[in-house]
């Protein structure tokens, strides 16, 4: 079968997956961890422990704070030292639970062995409950609570579960490594989610620049023999790992403006999420560990790592363990170079969705002086959502909210293709992101007003 990719836009940054050969190492425990209460999309979790309590690793320390929210568990055993606001990676205050590490004792009922459990429990509701209880969130970047995504609104039918192994961001290799080292667990996780969604088709999409992963996953699928799961090799193009792009690449369907993937019968989950689902359902292990990549263009290959970390480890601790911040690092980024955010505060801690510590040199991060738009249209060609970034940029500058909404700024996925391709180095994404936030705010307010009006009419 000919390799496919999404049809609109996209760019081809150098994939720079230097750390692909680094096997996953387990990080030793620090003395203290700080576990954030807002490590998922939606409402922050509410702490259920008090200062002075003894907790074990895997024990629930905070309950979901709303419908779209997730439970948070302790990643270590020890004593709760404080529950106080602390600065997160962007320097904003977020409630954290500080735990002093004492030993490494896990809560009862958690299976820490390596034995593969392939028998999938029969009860759909029980599986969903387990996923919810274990605080599993999407690990592809958005950290959307998985149990919400796996439970589509009544009336919508999932036709295809897409397991996202694209890992289209340059530099990152954490997903690649887990596909290589734990393929069977991922496949079992996919089979579990497939069952929850009503035995739909399941496609594991992997970009062709990771042939080892494709081979390893295909082998695992063949060995485990679950029906209806296939591995699909995709042409390399950024942002293939975007939900809507992956749906287009795999299913040749496009999600309409403002719609959810389920409207075209698709549910997309990351490979790391699939692994977390496996651990939650088969091993009863809450989501307290994940894999992150320590990489960058100013870091020699022998100093690059893929680490299995526990949530709440300070970034400074991980950086130090990995050999310190390299000389010549002009910027430290959490996430990929395209969509990641610069780390403003190295004392911030890892969260469920942490994927990397990326050290970039001055040459790779320096912004050139913005020039004038020459209407070359490269940004419009590159936009994977089919928007016109140069026009949105102009509208955003004057703040024309009606026109911005009419030109679908709310559909922007902030992938950065426009800014990447702009020959005039215009800050397209910076402006569009702000306009997007404002328009989304207006849409939300309007939806709330419409809901209130409908309720008033009912009465």
């Amino acid at each position, binding site marked *: 079968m000919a390799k496919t990719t999404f049809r609109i836009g996209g760019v081809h940054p150098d994939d720079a997956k230097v750390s692909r050969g680094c096997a996953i190492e387990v990080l030793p425990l620090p003395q203290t961890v700080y576990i954030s209460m807002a490590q998922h999309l939606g409402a922050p979790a509410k702490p259920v422990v008090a200062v002075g309590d003894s907790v074990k690793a895997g024990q629930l320390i905070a309950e979901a704070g709303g419908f779209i929210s997730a439970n948070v568990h302790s990643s270590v055993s020890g004593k709760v030292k404080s529950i106080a606001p602390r*600065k997160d990676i*962007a*320097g*904003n*205050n977020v409630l954290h639970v500080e735990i002093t590490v004492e030993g490494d004792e896990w809560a009862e009922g958690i299976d820490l062995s390596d034995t593969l459990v392939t028998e999938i429990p029969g009860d759909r509701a029980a599986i969903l409950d387990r996923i919810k209880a274990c605080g599993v969130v999407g690990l592809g970047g958005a950290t959307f609570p998985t149990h919400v995504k796996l439970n589509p609104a009544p009336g919508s039918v999932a036709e295809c579960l897409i397991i996202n192994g694209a890992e289209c961001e340059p530099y990152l290799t954490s997903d690649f490594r887990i596909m290589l080292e734990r393929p069977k667990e991922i496949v079992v996780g996919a089979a579990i989610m497939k069952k929850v969604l009503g035995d739909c088709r399941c496609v594991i999409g992997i970009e062709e620049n990771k042939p080892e992963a494709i081979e390893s996953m295909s082998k695992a699928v063949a060995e485990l023999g679950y029906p209806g799961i296939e591995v699909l090799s995709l042409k390399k193009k950024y942002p293939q790992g975007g939900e809507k792009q992956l749906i287009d690449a795999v299913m040749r369907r496009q999600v309409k403006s403002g719609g959810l993937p389920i409207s075209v019968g698709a549910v997309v989950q990351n490979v790391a999420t699939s692994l977390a689902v496996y651990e939650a359902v088969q091993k009863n292990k809450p989501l307290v560990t994940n894999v992150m990549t320590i990489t960058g263009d100013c870091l020699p290959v022998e100093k690059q790592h893929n680490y299995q970390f526990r949530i709440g480890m300070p970034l400074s601790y991980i950086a130090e363990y990995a050999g310190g911040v390299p000389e010549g690092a002009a*910027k430290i980024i959490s996430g990929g170079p395209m969509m990641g*955010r*610069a780390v*403003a*505060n190295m004392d911030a801690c890892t969260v469920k969705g942490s994927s990397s510590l990326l050290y970039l040199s001055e040459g790779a*991060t*320096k*912004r050139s002086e*913005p020039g004038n738009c020459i209407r070359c249209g490269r940004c419009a060609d590159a936009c994977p959502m089919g928007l016109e970034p140069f026009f949105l940029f102009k509208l955003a500058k004057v703040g024309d909210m009606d026109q911005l909404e009419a030109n679908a700024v709310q559909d922007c996925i902030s992938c950065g293709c426009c800014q990447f391709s702009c020959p005039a180095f215009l*800050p397209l994404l*910076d*402006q569009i*992101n*702000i306009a997007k*936030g404002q328009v989304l705010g207006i849409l939300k307010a309007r939806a709330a007003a419409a809901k209130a009006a409908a309720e008033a009419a009912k009465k």
Partner: protein
Amino acid sequence: MTQTIIWTIVIISVLGMLLALVLFFIAKKFKVEEDPRIDEVEKVMPGANCGGCGFAGCRAFADAAVKAPNLDSQFCPVGGNDVMKKVAAILGYEVKEKAPMVAVVRCNGSCENRPRTNSYDGYPSCKVKAALYSGDTGCAFGCLGCGDCVAACQFGALSMDPVTGLPVVDGTKCTACGACTKACPRHIIELRNVGTTPKNTRRVYVACSNKEKGGVARKACKAACIGCGKCAKVCKFDAITVADNLSYIDYSKCKACGQCFFECPTGAIHVFGFEPKKVEPKPAPAAVPAAPKPAPAPAAEPVKKEVDNG
């Protein structure tokens, strides 16, 4: 040849007259009846079209003023009482005098007071910076220093001080239109009374917006308000309230005695337009910051330089 010229002139003249006639009748038929007072009011307006009054421009303000039953809800901040009196005279309304206002920057996080913890190399706009993260200092409330307010000011009243990295308000040019207060993503610019009375230009304000606990705020910025409440205790006029670890001076109650200025341990309270007198002689407050200013400070200490943020 002559004939051609004559015919051309005749035809053009006749055409011109006919078209003029058509235009005359059209103008009469489709004439929009407009209150002549709108034009009159518009003439006395400053004509800046800044939108500080809340209307799209001076004509929109005039239109609304003519249609409104009174002038209570309308005020032109740029023209002030003088213009409002003229408007009231044209429309035959009464107008309440409003105290003149001026923009005040409630942050004293200069480069010296507030050390940088990281460097920002993104797009130089406060709006963009605020959307990305908490800023390049330890304070998540103070000035971001990219000058969105300067760009928003139509009257040239704001400028960035290269030494402190903070905006400076030129009180003589500021019209209190409020454009800067809207442009600031941190909402640190406030419109305050120019003085306690129309003739008096004394004013006292807290030059800090940090709502964090004292220790955290002080760690981020030497001149931060730590919410100790000493100023509120010393105030005889009940003008100071401390909420969320931040002191606020109500300018409608403040009599500008300046006692709080001496009491403040961090120098977060700024005075403008006068030399405060101490009630009881005390040793000079240690924490009065010799805030770095572009021009050498006047000899009369401890009054800070008069253009100091307002």
